[in-house]
């Protein structure tokens, strides 16, 4: 029981971390990024390569992979998203355009990964030693994944809530059309939010690679779960993403432990649907 709770928190922490990235991209940059999960998986593969080929620990590889995720997303925004942002007459048109463009991007990233790594299940063994916490046995890699997720997520929340820069981000999230009136460069802010979202995706990928098996095609599931967490938590809400991520992780772990591991995705969907019907604006979203 207690063991499942900790495992659920680990999974939920990872989901929350990844979903925070997506909520930045969707809530602030207004890009619905369907290739988000594939960025996560690409980072997981990068951590795998750094670990097996160079013997670099995932903690160190964060220093390489996270900036790479930032740079990649920065580039994608400048190259693909910015023209779409410019041409779209309203946020609805941008939503559709970005969904379509990132749907294409999903296949590109997946294709590249497939060429490089093939379609097999991949994992590596790092800190795979049991630790005893109050009687429950948990692998050290899972524990460090949880701590990492908490540190990274916490740092982001502090940045957004306590700094001037964070204020600018939140202003754009609330109203992209009136932010320029107070001197905020919306495109620049959006690009930054999109890139940081990418950096979070990358960090999530590294964290996931520490304790999970993954394949080239697992990206879709991560995108899906991150989207569900974002919607559950309320678009653009970091505390919402945190709460919803933890709920999702716990539910999945308990469903896998007590019902059937094959039904975790179905249970995720069920929660999602129930929430959409009962509280369409999300746990922490404001009623429209």
């Amino acid at each position: 029981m207690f063991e499942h709770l900790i495992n659920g928190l680990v999974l939920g922490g990872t989901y929350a971390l990844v979903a925070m990235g997506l909520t930045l991209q969707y809530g602030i940059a207004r890009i619905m990024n369907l290739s988000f999960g594939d960025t996560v998986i690409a980072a997981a593969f990068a951590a795998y390569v750094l670990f097996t080929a160079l013997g670099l620990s995932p903690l160190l590889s964060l220093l390489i992979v996270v900036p790479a995720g930032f740079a990649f997303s920065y580039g994608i925004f400048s190259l693909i998203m910015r023209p779409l942002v410019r041409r779209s007459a309203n946020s609805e048109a941008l939503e559709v355009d970005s969904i379509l463009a990132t749907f294409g991007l999903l296949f590109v990233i997946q294709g590249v990964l497939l060429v490089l790594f093939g379609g097999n299940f991949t994992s590596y063994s790092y800190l795979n030693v049991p630790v005893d916490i109050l009687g429950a046995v948990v692998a050290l890699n899972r524990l460090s994944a949880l701590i990492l997720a908490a540190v990274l997520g916490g740092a982001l929340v502090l940045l957004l809530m306590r700094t001037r820069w964070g204020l600018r981000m939140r202003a754009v999230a609330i109203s992209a059309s009136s932010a320029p009136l107070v001197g905020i460069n919306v495109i620049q802010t959006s690009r930054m939010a999109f890139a940081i979202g990418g950096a979070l995706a990358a960090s999530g990928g590294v964290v996931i690679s520490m304790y999970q098996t993954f394949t080239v095609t697992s990206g879709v599931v991560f995108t899906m779960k991150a989207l569900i967490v974002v919607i559950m938590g309320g678009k653009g809400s970091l505390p919402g993403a945190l709460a919803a991520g933890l709920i999702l992780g716990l539910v999945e772990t308990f469903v896998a432990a007590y019902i059937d591991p094959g039904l975790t995705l179905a249970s995720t969907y069920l929660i999602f649907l129930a929430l959409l019907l009962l509280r369409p604006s999300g746990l922490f979203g404001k009623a429209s």
Partner: protein
Amino acid sequence: MKPFLFGLLVIGLLAWAPLVLNDYGTGLLLGLTGYATLATAWAMFSGPTRYVSLATVAFFGIGAYTVAVLSETLPYPLVLVVAALIGLSVSLVVGLATLRLAGVYFVIFSFGLAELVRQTVTWYEVNVTGTLGRYIFLPLEARHIYWQLLALLVLTLLIGIYMRKSRIWLALVAVGDDEVAARHAGVDVTRTKLALFALSATIITLVGAIQAPRWTYVEPTIVFNPTISFLTLVMALLGGAGKLWGPIVGAIPLFLLFEWLSANFPNHYSIILGGIFILIVFAVPNGILARLETLGQRRKGEAQ
């Protein structure tokens, strides 16, 4: 009368084609007709309402898997009916749950639906029936499958033609433009969306069911391949999802291109595909047909 006769002639020629074509040619025509039907059915709902559905393969797979499960216990025509009914029921449930909400929820839900159905089917097969993967032994040759698909395509187009003459088309376009205005004009927005989504999904399910015997061996990863959703979407968008003929105009060149790519660049197929798709989103946001029309108008304008 003239377009009607012309249509009959084209259908006749297409129906006659497999009698003179070799196996490869018939197979190509079969695949093309399958995608043309998928894209046309997809655009029937998503074109006017602009609700982008990424769930094509969920329904396609449901159709194919139903045939795989039932082909030995029920007569073939009945299997198709059951497949259509299952597709219809799933689409009604999904539609009822998501179509009342903003479009983006629908997109997201449809995006994951294929994965959900695939995992659920896999779970069911492993835990309940104890097998993963099934064989389909039906006495159907490629041309038989092709003829069924052709009939379904013609039916889909006829529905499309009929719809465009009836008030429902006006309601669908209005829903795509402004749901509030449509509602206050008396349109039952939710029911209209639901009906069209269910119709489109049922046709897609039937395409999967009819094409299933082409694979003699079926398992969830084969029939729930997300590339099918992707290609359908690309074709409809390239041709223009708002036009009756748009999806077919998009399907022909893209299907041939994809065939050639998968034969020549099997490893880089998905990369090229994704790249082409991004280009399409950029270059022809409203589809080739709309682009051709604006070009035509410009030329007319210049001539005057």
